[in-house]
């Protein structure tokens, strides 16, 4: 391996390390913040780093989307709701039922461990060892993914519009000002 390739791979490793550290630290911070606003900010960090990881995977289109949709739109939505319902809480983790929930986390950890063990055990398989960008022209670009989207995946593309429509409609239904609920039994 020549020096240039080596340093390129070195750089790649460093970038990967930084980005994945961003993802994981961001994630950890998100679930540990007491204030939801800070949690949203940390989540933005996670998603931004994730977008970076997507880019290193040659998923440029998705990386852009990740920033636009998640770090942008969805997070703004979150912020709105946080502003609406936020109450500073003294205990971020409820005491009651903690044993069961901790057992749940352990169980999830066990599943995680199993899969992680399998992945590292099989890391020499071609699938898991592959690292280079695949030799497909325009891999992961808007045009390539878009072409696929409008060819083979036309049906899901149409179907997801229904999903988004109903999310919007339903959101409006639930949150709009009470118009026809004449009775005001809501305290």
């Amino acid at each position, binding site marked *: 391996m020549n020096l240039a390739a080596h340093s390129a791979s070195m750089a790649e490793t460093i970038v*990967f390390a930084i980005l994945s550290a961003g*993802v*994981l630290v961001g*994630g*950890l911070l*998100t*679930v540990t*913040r007491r204030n*939801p606003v800070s*949690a949203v900010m940390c*989540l933005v960090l*996670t*998603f931004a780093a*994730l977008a970076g990881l*997507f880019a*290193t*995977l040659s998923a440029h*289109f*998705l990386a852009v*989307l*990740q920033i636009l*949709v*998640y770090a942008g739109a*969805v997070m703004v*939505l*979150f912020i709105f*709701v946080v502003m609406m*319902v*936020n*109450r500073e809480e003294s205990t971020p*983790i409820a005491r009651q039922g903690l044993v069961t*929930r901790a057992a*749940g*986390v352990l169980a*999830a*950890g066990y599943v*995680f461990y199993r899969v*992680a063990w399998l*992945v590292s055990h*099989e*890391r020499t398989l071609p*699938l*898991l*060892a*592959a690292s280079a*960008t*695949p030799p497909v022209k325009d*891999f*992961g670009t808007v045009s*390539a*993914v878009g072409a*696929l*989207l409008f060819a083979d995946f036309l049906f*899901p593309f149409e179907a*997801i519009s229904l*999903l988004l429509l109903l*999310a*919007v409609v339903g*959101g409006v239904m639930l949150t709009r000002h009470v118009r026809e609920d004449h009775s005001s039994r*809501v305290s």
Partner: protein
Amino acid sequence: MPTYAYILVSLALFFVGAAGVLLRRNVLIVLMSVEMQLAAGTLALLSFSRALGDQKGHVFAFFVMALAAAEAAVGLAIVVSVFRTRRTASLDEVNGLKG
């Protein structure tokens, strides 16, 4: 970087999300954790996609992203309506239905 490294990161993110869902009291943070789990799935999909040189994973990831956005919208709407009826966003206080 080899694919397995990405998968491990995505698994770790998935686990962190799961832990957040299971432990946090604030329903908004729980929803954020759910989003994290979905994002972890996206990352795994994209890693496999690159390893296989196949872009179907990208398309799937695209849909997962849309789906996560829709889910967030609906989830937040429901959180708002819970907050309206109960004046709380703490999950441990939303336990009127049981038994």
